[in-house]
C-alpha cells in the first residue's frame, strides 16, 4: 500500500504540495487526476524519495520514503514522466540492467528479464538496440524496466502520453493483470478517459491538495454530473472558487 500523509512542499514562493494525503491500496488502480501544475509529479517524486517534503511523509508498505529511500525504492516499479533509453543497449540489456539494480543478477536476472520481455510481447525486439525504436516500443522497454523485479507497487507518471491505440491497450491490459495479482498501482494523468476507463479510485488533485476522492461513480454523484469530465471541471472550479 502506498500512503501519503499531509505532504507539504514549497519551491520558493510556489506551493507545490499543500497538505496532500491519500492512499493507494493493494489490488487497486488509483488515479491521480489533476490539471497541469497541480503537483502530481512532485508528489510522485516524493514517493520515490527524490524530493524531500517540507513536512509530511510518504509510506511504501509502512516504510518512510523520506527516511529509508533505498528500502522504499526496492518495492516500487517506476514508469517515469520522461523516459530515456540507452540507445546503444538492446532492449534486453536495458531491462537486465534495471533487474540487476534491484538485486536480480545472474540466473535470476536473466529469468526475470525474459519473463518481463515475454509478458510485454517484445521478444522480437529484445535483442535490437534501442536506436530506431518506435514510441510504442520505447514505452514497452520502459514498462518492462518498471516491472522486471515484480514490484508490489507500480507508479506511473502520465503513462499514456504520446502512445498510439495499440500501446495504450497493451498498457491497460498489463495494469489490469497486475491489479489482479494484488499490485497497488498509482498513476497520474490529466486524461479523463484514461482515468475513467481504468481506475478503481480517483484522487483529484488541485493546487497541491486533494480536491475530491472516490470512484468515478462517486465523483459524478458528488457533483451531480453524469460524465467524469464535467465532474472534474466542477471539482476544480469549485475549489478555485473557495480558494479565491
Amino acid at each position, binding site marked *: 500500500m502506498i500512503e501519503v500523509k499531509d505532504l507539504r512542499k514549497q*519551491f520558493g514562493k510556489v506551493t507545490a504540495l499543500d497538505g496532500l494525503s491519500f492512499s493507494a491500496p493493494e489490488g487497486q488502480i488509483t488515479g491521480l487526476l489533476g490539471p497541469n501544475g497541480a503537483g502530481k509529479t512532485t508528489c510522485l*517524486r516524493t514517493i*520515490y*524519495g*527524490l*524530493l*524531500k517534503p517540507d513536512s509530511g511523509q510518504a509510506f511504501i508498505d509502512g516504510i518512510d520514503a523520506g527516511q529509508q529511500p*533505498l*528500502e522504499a*525504492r*526496492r518495492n516500487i516499479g*517506476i514508469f*517515469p*514522466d*520522461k*523516459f*530515456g*533509453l*540507452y*540507445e*546503444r*543497449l538492446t532492449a534486453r*540489456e536495458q531491462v537486465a*540492467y*534495471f533487474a*540487476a*539494480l*534491484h*538485486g536480480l*543478477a*545472474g540466473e535470476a536476472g536473466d529469468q526475470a528479464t525474459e519473463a518481463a520481455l515475454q509478458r510485454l510481447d517484445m521478444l522480437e525486439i529484445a535483442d535490437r538496440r534501442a536506436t530506431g525504436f518506435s514510441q510504442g516500443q520505447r514505452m514497452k522497454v520502459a514498462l518492462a*524496466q518498471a516491472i522486471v523485479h515484480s514490484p508490489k507497487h507500480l507508479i506511473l507518471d502520465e503513462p499514456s502520453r504520446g502512445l498510439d491505440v495499440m500501446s495504450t491497450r497493451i498498457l491497460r491490459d498489463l495494469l489490469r493483470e497486475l491489479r489482479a495479482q494484488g499490485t497497488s498501482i498509482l498513476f497520474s494523468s490529466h486524461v479523463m478517459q484514461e482515468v475513467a476507463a481504468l481506475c478503481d479510485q480517483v484522487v483529484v488533485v488541485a493546487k497541491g491538495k486533494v480536491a475530491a476522492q472516490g470512484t468515478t461513480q462517486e465523483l459524478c454523484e458528488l457533483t451531480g454530473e453524469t460524465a467524469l469530465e464535467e465532474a472534474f471541471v466542477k471539482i476544480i472550479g469549485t475549489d478555485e472558487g473557495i480558494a479565491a
Partner: protein
Amino acid sequence: MTNPVKIVWRKELRDAIRDKRSVMAAMSYAFFGPLLMAVAFYVMISQLTDPSDVEIDIQGAEHAPALIEHLNSNGIVKREKAWAAGQQPITLEIDASWADDLAMAMPAKVTLTADFSATKQRGDINRIERAIEAYGSQIAYIRLQMRGLDPRVVKPIDLVKHDTATKGSRAAILMGSVLIFILLSVFFSGMNVAIDISAGERERNSLELLLSQPLNAHQLVLGKALAASCFAIFGGVLSVVLIPIIFRFLPLHNIGISLSLDWTMMVLIVLMLVPLALFATSLQLFVSFRAKSFKEAQTYISFLLMLPMLAVFGVEFARLKNPVLYYLPLTGQHQALLDIIKGESLHWLPMGISALATLLVSWLLIRFIGRMLASEKVVFGL
C-alpha cells in the same frame, strides 16, 4: 555481481565501448597526438642540425677570392635566388682595400649586415662570424710564424667549449612536452565518456529514473567514474606504448637525447596514471553533472582541461622546486615522470603518497558528486 557499483560500471563500460565517438576520442588523442608531436620534433631537429649551405649576398667578392673560397668550403655561398618575403637579407661586404690592407698587415674591413635579432637566422649569422674569425686567425698564425713567433703565444688560454646548453634545453623542452602529453592523455581519453554518462544521461531524460533506483547516489557516481577511468587508462596506456615506438623513428641522437623506456618503466608509468585517471574523470563528472546538456558540458570541460595544463606548465616554466610538489595530485605524478624520463633515482615514498592523495581527492569528489545528486536543486534544476 549484486554490488551496484559493479553493475553500473559494467553497463556504462558496455555502453561506452559501443559508442564510436567515445572510442575514437580515446584512441585519436593517443594515436595522432604522438604523431603530431613527432612531426614537430622532426622539423625542430632538422632545423637544429641543418647541414645545408647558408646563402647570403656577397659584395666585393672579387677583392678577396681566397676568403670566398674559405667561406665556400664552410658552406657559406653566394646567393643566386632572391630573398623570400619576410626574410631579412644577410649581406657580406668586402672592402675594395682588402688586398692592400692585408699586404700592409692592417685590419681589412668586412661588413656583415643582417638583422641580428632574427632568431631564425641566428644560426646562419653565427656560422658566418665563426668562418670569418677562423680565416682571420689563420692569417694571424701565418703572420706570426713568418715573424718567427710561435702562434701559441697570442693564445694564452685554450678555452674548450662544450656546447651542451642549447641541446640540453631543447632536450628539456622535448621531454617536458612528452611528459605533459602522457599526463594529459588520461584527461582527454575519458572525457567523452564522462560527459556522456553524466550530462548525456540528463539530456536523455534517464537520470531521474536511475536516481529512483535502489542504490546510493555515490555508488552510481563511483560506478560511472570507474567506467570513464577505464577509458582514460586505455588512452594513457596507448600513449605510453606508442610514444617510444614513434620516437624511435626520430633522429633524436642528432640533438643528443635518447628516449628509451624499458617495459618496467612503462608499467610504472601506467600504474601512476591509474589514480590520476580516476582523479581526471571525477573532476570531469563533477563539472558535467552540473551541465544541462552534452554541449554545455563540453564547454565547461574544455575549460577544465586548462587546469592540468596550467598546473604542469606552471611548474615547468616557473621552475618551482618545492618538495611539496612531489606529494600533491597531478604535480606528484609529473615530478615522478620527470625523474623516470631523466633516468634519475625514484622517490618511492613521495610517489606513494601522491598516489594516495590523488585517490583520496577523487574519492572525496565522488562523495561530493553523490551528495550533489541527492540534492533536488541539482537534479531538477529547481
